């Protein structure tokens, strides 16, 4: 294989992984925008969703379609429970206190999953076809390509929904100024709960996709740490920015893996995030607020 062809193949695989990063990042960002809560439990929510899918599709033998429906319902129920029981009482508390709560929730989920399903890898039914896709002379692994397509469609649909729907306006209004949003009839607490539902949906889909591309383990959620870099790169609150920065991080990871020892691959997202933070503290796409003085 020529070096160029190899570069292109690695790039495509990397960008494809980035699509899932963007999907996870979107779930983190909508919550952050509406309530300044950074959800460190996102990875564990993903992982739990994938186990819900396993339980429904394999253990209860409902098949992949019903399995996905059950996983979505379960994920949304868990997200709403977390929001209602652990997050809502923390509203208005210091940022770091809420972050620690989400950390704790992540640990609890990991513990429960470990107790119920054990630490070993599980195989979930293949919902994505393995057959590779050829782009000209470039070989793209089938699962990766399909996972990418699904992730991108959902990310774009969600971005459009938040941009043009009335619910999106409510979300942005609550994010910008909660008191004023209240004064206009927007139930801010419901908006925040709604963002947890969005996170549950993106988490569930990305979790099942990840478990399909790799395998299902209690460590599935670790990928959300890479997504942290995506979110920082995109500028925390920039919903459009996550799509691009998801691709950038995914691509860079793959390319680093191609030319440097694997250890470098692990640190790439964080090094990039660090550099971006030093040069542009608001992220690549974060904007300072429009303000007329």
């Amino acid at each position, binding site marked *: 294989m020529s070096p160029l062809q190899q570069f292109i193949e690695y790039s495509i695989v990397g960008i494809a992984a980035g699509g899932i990063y963007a999907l996870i990042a979107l779930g983190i960002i909508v919550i952050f925008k509406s309530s300044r809560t950074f959800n460190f439990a996102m990875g564990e929510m993903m992982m739990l969703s994938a186990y819900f899918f396993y339980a429904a599709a394999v253990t209860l033998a409902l098949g992949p379609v019903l399995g996905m429906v059950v996983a979505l319902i379960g994920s949304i129920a868990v997200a709403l429970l977390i929001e209602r029981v652990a997050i809502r009482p923390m509203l208005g508390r210091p940022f770091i206190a809420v972050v620690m709560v989400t950390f704790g929730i992540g640990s609890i989920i990991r513990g429960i999953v470990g107790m119920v399903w054990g630490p070993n890898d599980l195989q979930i039914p293949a919902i994505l076809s393995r057959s590779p896709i050829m782009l000209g002379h470039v070989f793209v692994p089938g699962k990766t390509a399909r996972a990418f397509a699904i992730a991108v469609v959902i990310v774009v649909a969600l971005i459009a929904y938040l941009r043009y729907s009335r619910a999106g306006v409510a979300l942005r209004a609550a994010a910008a100024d909660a008191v004023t949003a209240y004064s*206009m*009839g927007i*139930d801010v607490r419901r908006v925040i709960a709604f963002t947890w539902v969005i996170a549950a949906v993106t988490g569930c889909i990305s979790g099942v996709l990840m478990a399909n591309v790799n395998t299902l383990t209690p460590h599935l959620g670790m990928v959300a740490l890479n997504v942290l870099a995506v979110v920082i790169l995109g500028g925390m609150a920039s919903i459009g920015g996550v799509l691009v920065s998801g691709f950038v991080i995914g691509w860079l990871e793959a390319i680093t893996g191609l030319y440097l020892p694997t250890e470098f691959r692990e640190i790439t997202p964080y090094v990039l995030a660090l550099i971006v933070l030093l040069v542009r503290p608001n992220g690549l796409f974060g904007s300072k607020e429009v303000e*007329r003085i």
Partner: protein
Amino acid sequence: MAAALEIKGLEVVYQGVIQALSSLSLNVPEGAIVALLGANGAGKTTTLKAISGFLPLESGRITRGSITVGGQDIMKLAPHRIVRRGIFHVREGRHVFSDMTVEENLVASTFAQRRPRPRREAFDEVYSYFPILSQRRAQPAGFLSGGEQQMLAIGRALVADPEMILLDEPSLGLAPLIVKEIFEIIARINREKKVSILLVEQNAVIALKYASYGYVVENGRTVLEGSTAELSNNQDIQKFYLGVDSHAAA
């Protein structure tokens, strides 16, 4: 005339210790413009927040008294419920969503409408009262001038189709000509749409001109009330609020 809004002996305490209102009473009849006058810190804005349900968001609490609309107690309702009951609070400082467009600001206010389906025709009405907003509908609200932002803040209230607007310092930081323009429109809205208005305003001259009735608040209680004609002739009002010193002439 039936009292649209009635406040009796209202006492408000912030953070359990700071008393902002001690005994405030007032009435806003249907379709009237009523002015609330008083110095900084007298309790005018707190009164509006007590009506619109914002006190709990700032660790404030009503400890005594009553607020009723058409005879019904509204003190237990959350802010978003109160606005859907037809009482819209236009806060001091305008608070437009600066990185959302003018039109999106109006869309956000459709959540205050009491109908099950959002009513877009309300936007045309806003644009007919404030034609400049129509020209700027696709611009971020942060780029509007202060006067235009105040127009947008009032426009958002109109979208909600309220029975009453609580208007806090609409003239703040605006040039006199703009203030006059905005008050003329407020008067038209009051007349044409039968919206009653409770007006908090530092500029007593303009408040007494456009309101029909007024209350003077001092240290959290209403100390003086009367028609604006009476208040304008009151010596204390002239001295402390209108800057007219009757002794200087003598």
